[in-house]
């Protein structure tokens, strides 16, 4: 079920009404688990089976980890094999088979195409990582294994963050699940404007800019200027799409008495790659840091080569996590390379320039890298880029130049509502008149700028 569908507009209030009328925590949690499965299985009920199997398996393994400490490694390995195997089959099998076949053809072997059409279950990458995080935390002794199955099932399948995160930590979400939750009227003041902002980000900004992006990346031979405008447009689209989703998720969870972690902190204000990853998709980047980068050795390894290899491998894997295609791999590798370059230049970690001019320069350079990264992320395929680059003109003909300007003006037009979004978030006092007026404008713009039934959120694909 999509957050920006009419169904959700009916679903959420109905759930809230029933949920807050339930007097007992146990029943509230049970009710939420049922609702989570209803939400997840709305389009493909069979997806519920997958998440149920995953939940049962990890619940059982968590308990085994505590009960049989001498077999801890076996259990954690089992969980990793199972969860990653699941992910690999559903997400990467086609990609793997295709590439093996292509490689064999290059080497002169004729392999018959072996493909299985597998429907990628929405959110599998998110809940799989959340479950792995839980198992590793139990293994490390950071959290106790959950003994209540319903609570654990709620942790794995909590509907506001099930499909596209934030990827919650057991230490943050499980205590909220186990603690009695109380209704406060203040919830309305915090959560509803957040949901409104999320819907506005998605339907007004991201979905309208998506049209511009799709057109540019559909061109056989775009000019460089077009590619730049398209990439800038995509950087706006993906931020407002994903942060819009997160806002709705956090707002919906807030209405249920939960607090989900922050996922974005003005990413386009970053001045270095480390800074960018502290601001962009925070729940994922910290997950990658804590469960992949640091266990592999992180920055503490003595050899520079090993450090470089770990960093590049971590970021390439994080790219592959986004999708089974080479452009995502390239995107991850590119970010790894930029991180490495900054690190080697002494600008890693929490580095900050000392002067204002230095700050401006750093920001400009970093944002250029971010844009190059987004270009790799958005291109239809590496093949497309290789085909387009050799004959690419900077400006092209007069017709192309004027078209680029015209498209850029449209982009500016659809990006302008971002000012309303910022205003609502900035004037955050509950009695702020400006906030209320901006909310009115936001409502109006949602109705006027809504395109059809809305596109899927970009991160639903991952």
């Amino acid at each position, binding site marked *: 079920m999509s957050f920006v569908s*009419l169904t959700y507009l009916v679903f959420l209030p109905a759930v809230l009404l029933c949920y*807050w*009328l*339930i*007097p*007992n*925590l146990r029943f*509230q949690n049970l009710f939420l688990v049922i609702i989570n499965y209803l939400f997840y299985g709305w389009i493909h009920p069979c997806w519920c089976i997958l998440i149920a199997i995953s939940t049962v398996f990890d619940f059982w393994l968590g308990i085994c980890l505590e009960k049989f400490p001498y077999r801890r490694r076996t259990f954690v390995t089992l969980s990793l094999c199972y969860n990653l195997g699941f992910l690999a089959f559903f997400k990467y099998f086609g990609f793997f088979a295709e590439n093996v076949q292509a490689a064999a053809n290059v080497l002169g072997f004729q392999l018959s195409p072996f493909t299985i059409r597998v429907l990628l279950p929405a959110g599998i990458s998110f809940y799989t990582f959340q479950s792995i995080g839980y198992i590793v935390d139990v293994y490390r002794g950071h959290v106790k294994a959950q003994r209540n199955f319903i609570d654990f099932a709620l942790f794995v399948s909590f509907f506001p963050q099930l499909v596209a995160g934030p990827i919650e930590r057991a230490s943050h979400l499980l205590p909220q699940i186990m603690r*009695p*939750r*109380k*209704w*406060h*009227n*203040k919830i*309305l*003041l915090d959560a*509803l*404007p957040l949901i409104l902002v999320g819907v506005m980000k998605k339907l007004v900004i991201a979905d309208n800019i998506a049209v511009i992006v799709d*057109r540019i990346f*559909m*061109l*056989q*031979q775009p000019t460089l200027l077009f590619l730049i405008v398209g990439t800038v447009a995509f950087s706006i689209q993906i931020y407002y799409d994903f942060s819009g989703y997160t806002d709705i998720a956090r707002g919906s969870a807030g209405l249920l*008495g939960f607090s989900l972690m922050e996922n974005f902190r003005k990413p386009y204000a970053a001045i270095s790659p480390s800074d960018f990853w502290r601001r962009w998709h925070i729940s994922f980047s910290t997950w990658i840091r804590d469960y992949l980068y640091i266990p592999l050795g992180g920055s503490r390894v003595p050899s520079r080569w090993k450090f470089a290899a770990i960093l590049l491998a971590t970021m390439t894997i994080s790219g592959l996590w986004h999708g089974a295609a080479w452009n995502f791999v390239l995107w991850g590798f590119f970010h790894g390379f930029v991180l490495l370059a900054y690190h080697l230049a002494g600008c890693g970690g929490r580095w900050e320039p000392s002067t204002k001019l230095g700050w401006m320069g750093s920001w400009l350079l970093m944002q250029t890298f971010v844009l190059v990264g987004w270009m790799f992320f958005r291109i*239809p395929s590496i093949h*497309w880029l290789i085909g387009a680059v050799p004959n690419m003109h900077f400006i092209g003909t007069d*017709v*192309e*130049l*004027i*078209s680029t*300007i*015209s*498209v*850029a*003006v*449209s982009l*500016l*037009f659809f990006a302008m509502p971002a000012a309303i979004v910022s205003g609502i978030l900035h004037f955050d006092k*509950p*009695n702020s*008149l400006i*906030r*209320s*007026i901006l*909310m*009115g*404008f*936001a*409502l*109006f713009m949602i*109705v*006027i*700028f*809504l395109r*059809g039934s809305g596109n899927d959120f970009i991160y639903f694909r991952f």
Partner: protein
Amino acid sequence: MTSSTSGSSPGALTLAARQWIIALSVFTVCAFALTPTEQRRPSGHRLPYLQRTIEIDKPCIVMIGNSTLDDSTDPVMLSQLLNTTTEKVQFPGSATAIWYLYIKNVLTKTTNKPQYAIIFFRDNDLTNPDYRVTGNYRTMIQDLSDGEETTLRRLAPSFPQPFVIESLHNHFAFIRQRTVIRDSIEQPIRELLVPPLAGTTAGEAWRMEGLTFADERLNKELLTRIQLVAEEDVDATHYNFGDRVQASFLPLMHDMLREGNIRFIVVRLRRLRDALGKPEPEKLVNYMADLRSWLEERNIPLVDFTHDDRVTPDLFAVGDHLSKTKGMETFTPLLAERLAPLVTNCVHQAAPSQ
């Protein structure tokens, strides 16, 4: 007791109410201020024009279809080759719901009925009544509707909008006029910014944008892949002819044309998949065999180009669409050749029409 619905902070509720009252007031003021006075387009407003076209042109053959018909067939050339008059009626992206309405509300209601009505389709289009009846197609359907169209509502369940949406559309002008309001906001901004930046008018820049993003400049491979994926989703569940036919518009179209004394012919177009030598899905092969028998029983000729190797891959422009130049020039004579023995009643001498 773990939860309570009693307000622990009574001021918060008042503040929230105040916040939303102000927001809704701003929303209402915007809606009233920006909604222009409208002239509502009545349902079926295209019917008189379409009927008049047939009455004036008096075609012997009317071809009905979507853009695959538009891109593949030149009616002027076809008329010359068959020595008759033809009319090409194409609704971009249309499917059976729209073709059914055209036959019901235009063809069978004109005084100068054509001798032949030919529907151009792909694969299982003819028994897919719920296909393309939402979004922009809904408007197209409304423009061709004559009254409530209860049969259409029954056979195409996606066509009726949810009650809430339908009510909002019916009662709130600003929702009906969303796109007009949106343009009225966008246009002044474009007119303010485009001329100084581009050195030309906003309208001219718009035209150039159209040229830049014209079909022939788009990535053919990508477009084809998108089209195939979209159609694969639609087709997957619709291959059981026996189950589908009675719940489709096909028998109704046949009955109406027979009662109107118009001969019904169907033309199955070759798809890019076939031209590339990819095998037809087994379900489709069975489906086509059933469709063929059904048509034979009713004496409806089927002209099937699926296995006609003269329609080569290089004639295709985007997806299943032939190129309007080489593709159309090659396909039209092939069509004439196959139609000639079937349209023997057409002996008009009138000038060919577009």
